[in-house]
């Protein structure tokens, strides 16, 4: 498998798809940086917390493009066929492609974070969150990328037509985003509405009223589980977690959930890769 990985990485050096995605990533980093700096003209520095994870909204599309085109070309050029002919097992081919996709995803994400950190820290200030929280967010991001890679590798290697696999991957990301948005309100519904009232002494009192739209514990838990299983769902939860306003109502993800979110990604990755490898092994190639 090392030889396959080595070949894939050499291909990356001259690969226009990879280069194009890196350039687009730099462009997105510049736009987001510029936008954040413009909106942060006050005296208090916002920090780069939110900015650092914002690219997660784009990483799905970037990885869908890369994985489907990079590996789809292997099908269309007959390279995949050649690998089997010269004696590579399908398991090795699958895993090498999966690892390549993961590494490219991580590379793109960290290129973005690096650019944002280098330019953003002097202007916007350093991290506002604790280092521990930041490390858990990084851990979650890494596993979200791994999940994306497993989904797109599975689709691309099981679909021998590059056009169909590329379109399928892109549409799937959009569907996942829409599904996440749809699930979000149920998954994050609060049982009680809190109202803050100032009493006669000038103190703030918190009043809790039962939320009439609360879907029930079971529905909420199911929606939350599905939301965390979707890489797009976790992305929106993480971004809400590092929201710039401390009391913003969208801050749905508890610290405990932040620490365990990667387990959902891990589970999804294992299932998809297992199913993908099993199906790829049995697939009749042309």
């Amino acid at each position, binding site marked *: 498998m090392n030889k396959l990985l080595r070949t894939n990485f050499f291909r990356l050096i001259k690969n226009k798809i990879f280069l194009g995605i890196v350039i687009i990533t730099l462009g997105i980093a510049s736009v987001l940086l510029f936008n954040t700096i413009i909106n942060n003209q006050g005296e208090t520095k916002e920090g780069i917390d939110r900015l650092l994870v914002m690219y997660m909204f784009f990483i799905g599309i970037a990885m869908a493009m890369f994985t489907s085109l990079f590996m789809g070309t292997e099908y269309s*050029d007959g390279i995949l*066929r*050649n690998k*089997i002919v*010269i004696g590579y097992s399908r398991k090795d081919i699958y895993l090498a492609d999966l690892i390549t996709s993961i590494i490219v995803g991580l590379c793109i994400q960290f290129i973005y974070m690096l650019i944002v950190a280098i330019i953003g820290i002097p202007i916007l200030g350093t991290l506002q969150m604790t280092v521990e929280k930041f490390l858990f967010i990084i851990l979650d991001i890494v596993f979200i990328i791994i999940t994306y890679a497993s989904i797109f590798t599975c689709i691309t290697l099981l679909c021998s037509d590059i056009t169909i696999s590329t379109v399928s991957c892109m549409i799937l990301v959009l569907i996942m985003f829409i599904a996440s948005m749809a699930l979000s309100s149920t998954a994050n519904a609060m049982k009680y509405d809190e109202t803050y009232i100032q009493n006669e002494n000038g103190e703030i009192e918190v009043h809790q009223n039962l939320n009439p739209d609360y879907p029930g514990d079971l529905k909420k838990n199911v929606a939350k589980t599905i939301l965390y299983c979707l890489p797009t769902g976790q992305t929106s939860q993480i971004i809400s977690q590092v929201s710039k306003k401390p009391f913003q109502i969208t801050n749905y993800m508890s610290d405990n959930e932040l620490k365990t979110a990667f387990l959902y990604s891990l589970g999804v990755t294992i299932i998809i890769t297992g199913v993908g490898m099993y199906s790829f092994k049995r697939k*009749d190639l042309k």
Partner: protein
Amino acid sequence: MEYILETNQLEKTYHHFKAINNLNIHVPKGSIYGLIGKNGTGKTTLIRLICGLQKPTNGGYTIYGIKDTEKEILDIRKRMGAIIETPSIRLDATAEDNLKEQYRMIGLPSFDNLQELLKLVGLANTGKKKARHFSLGMKQRLGIAIALVGNPDFLILDEPINGLDPEGIIEIRELILTLNKEKGITFLISSHYLDELSKISTHYGFIKNGTMLQEIAKEQLEEKCKKRIELEVSNVKECVKYFEERQFSYEVISEKRLNLYNKINITDLAIALSEKNCIINKFQEKEESLESYYINLMGGGNNE
């Protein structure tokens, strides 16, 4: 005889369609084996099975004596190369880069012999030209060069001259003959260009509806196809006696018919046989080409 590839009642079914049906093939070491059959008879399916792209529904095959179900088959595949339908080349890379990628994939420590390989297939002067701009013949030759990386001793070529111009066909033919003679590479070549196959093949396999109709060596085929006189005589025994005395080459077809492969004067033969109470009732000069042999074997018009 040592066989590089053997299949045993190989079968491949797609849903309810049997693409390969109890097929047996024997590819001798050092041969150029021409796999002949019409389009859609299962030639490419057979090659896909042998190359591990698809799994047989029933039966199996051995390559260098290793069964397809054994783990070692993956190592054995390193000794073979294949071009199936279209050559496996990266169109956005140069000939040299394509070869380098194959070197890396195989895990060779250096690019030794790379230039030699390019020279061998006549692509040494392509420089920075991308494979996408190559002619069909050049792409085919690059495909062969890629398949040759790692010094395989068994090459499978599926329709290697499809779409090539006459010059390209000659180049591929010469290349195959050179590799077979100088490097001892065994070839399995599928094609429906009988004329071209007849120029290079040492063995033939005729395939129809996924079944092997006949396997035959070139010498045997030539023997069957060579010029002959078909005789219908009144007394085959006396006729055979006469042929034996003169050490003629002949073949008895039935109780009254024989084939004579020597050049003779028919009047002299008729007189000589009549002295032995044998009369020639009918004679016909015949010569069969590979094409007519193929058509006869395939069942001619009934085959359509």
